[in-house]
């Protein structure tokens, strides 16, 4: 009975340990046959810069005109001193609706940006909650992340 109780309390203590999950990303590599720039009309690639001024999101694609891509360009300054994740998600979702096969985002973080902000930015870009026919559901937005290795 004593042994059992001791084991129980030990396992209860262990059970309270941190459960770690993961977020996948890739590092840019030079490749002769692969390109991160989207090549179909339904696809664009987002390039998101995060820094002390907020978010700056631009889009690239091989099948869209420069004017068309420039219309998607947005800057989201800090809101009450914090990064405006809600506005970023809303804009990325609107782009995703227009170019539904898009899934790749290049994340460039300026020096001085905290790792925590990088993770929250990836969260904001990965998925969004939408309401379809009165039902709320989570849809992927830009879940594939390439972390730009060159930081300003």
């Amino acid at each position, binding site marked *: 009975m004593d042994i059992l109780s001791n084991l129980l309390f030990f396992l209860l203590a262990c059970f309270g*340990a941190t459960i*770690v*999950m993961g977020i*996948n990303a890739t*590092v840019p590599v030079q490749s002769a046959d692969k390109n991160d720039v989207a090549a179909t009309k339904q696809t664009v690639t987002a390039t998101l810069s995060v820094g002390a001024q907020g978010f700056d999101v631009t889009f690239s694609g091989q099948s869209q005109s420069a004017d068309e891509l420039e219309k998607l360009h947005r800057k989201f300054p800090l809101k009450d001193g914090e990064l405006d994740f809600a506005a970023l998600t809303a804009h990325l979702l609107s782009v995703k609706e227009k170019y539904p096969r898009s899934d790749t985002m290049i994340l460039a973080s300026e020096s001085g940006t905290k*790792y925590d902000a990088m993770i929250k930015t990836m969260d904001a870009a990965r998925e969004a909650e939408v309401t379809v026919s009165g039902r709320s559901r989570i849809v992927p937005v830009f879940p594939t992340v390439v972390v730009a*290795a060159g*930081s300003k």
Partner: protein
Amino acid sequence: MSGGGGTASIALNLTALMDILSNLLFFLLASYTAQSVEVEGKAELKLPSSSSQLALTPQVTITVTKNAIDVSGVPVANVSQGAIVGDLDASGRIGPMYERLRNVRVSREAAGRGDLAESDLVLLLADTETDAKTISTVLRTAGYAGFYNVRFGVVSR
């Protein structure tokens, strides 16, 4: 009239208690073994929280705490105020970290495990306060060493 001054002897039945304890024990044992990756508690490492539900599998682990960077437990660089202490090499890599990761990669290939799935994947556990520049440098170094895919370890929200 019954009763009197005698003390009644009550025998405690432990069977039900044992049953409950045993059930709890097996449940916790199952939960404990199901957890794929355990992170040792470190005062200098506070992982960010995330909504991600992607489970982890054991990988080569790069840990960036408030004071140091290590690869699978071997220290390769020091960190101060979120930035790397010391010079980088000509390619912008952390020299000792690159050597360590290359050794891991070479020994894997020598053992015939170089082409396995996720052989180019590293798990990055970094403190929330780490500067993005440090993260970029770590990722660049890992990329040079052949680890192109990274999985950021986060605490489930």
